[in-house]
């Protein structure tokens, strides 16, 4: 049975992009997004969103290791699920089609802006 592909929020899109090919934990996700996009995520906002995405089955997670410097708290690793990857592909396809719909001179104007 094919599951309906959910629409993504902008933050979900960003997080799925960061988790599409690599399994990462919170700090790694924050650093990856910051480096790639210049966007600074709060840990609370990040994990709350990931929690919601897991309920929507867009990501999968597992508990990882703990270290002394984490005071006994374990890491939690996330990666995009099959459904999450399909949702990401769908979203990107939609954006590509929308982009092609623009007249070429408008696209040039945007690129030159």
């Amino acid at each position, binding site marked *: 049975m094919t599951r309906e592909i959910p629409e993504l929020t902008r933050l979900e899109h960003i997080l799925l992009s960061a988790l599409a090919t690599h399994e990462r934990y919170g700090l790694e996700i924050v650093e990856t997004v910051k480096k790639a996009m210049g966007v600074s995520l709060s*840990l*609370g906002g990040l994990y709350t969103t990931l929690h919601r995405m897991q309920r929507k089955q867009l990501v999968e997670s*597992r508990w990882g290791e703990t270290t002394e410097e*984490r005071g006994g708290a374990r890491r939690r690793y996330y990666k995009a699920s099959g459904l999450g990857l399909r949702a990401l592909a769908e979203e990107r396809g939609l954006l590509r089609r929308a982009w092609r719909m623009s007249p070429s001179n408008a696209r040039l104007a945007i690129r030159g802006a």
Partner: protein
Amino acid sequence: MSEGSPFDAAEELSPPRIVEYGPTGLALEYKGGKKISRLFLHESMKLMTREAILSAIGRGGYVIYQGPDGFARLGPRSVVVPAGVVAVDVEHVSIPMFTEELRDPTESRSWFDLATFFLSREIREVVRGDILETRAKMTRRGYHRAWIEAVTAVELARSLGSSWGAALWDLVVNFIKGMLGT
């Protein structure tokens, strides 16, 4: 890879019921009887019955604050806030925060532990661990302790949201002032 939902906490998030009431506080039990937690009471509430406490909390005007012994306490805002205590309105606190286990008194003695107590239950361990890991990295890189505390406070305030971020900030500023002797 998935081990099922890591946050299968629906039962734990159900409203707790009070199972014990005594002079030192409230003991609460999650629905299903899995967890017993304790939230200590302000002196002025110790003679109130359990029904009176629940009714009073429902009317508002109550806050959770750090008591002189370091434990989280529930008390009337009119009594505890003028004393300059950082407090969180009960209406801003979700039920899981009410029902946290306080296994070790020392756990709530530092401002960091007190602050993370108010993070929602589902994200507390990971946020707390990531912040501690960041602090350790900054220490290794030679950052001044006051700077590390400030960075921690900013991250916590952003994670906790605006409802009591300002109160947390005051707490940290006081902590840093005390540390620097100013």
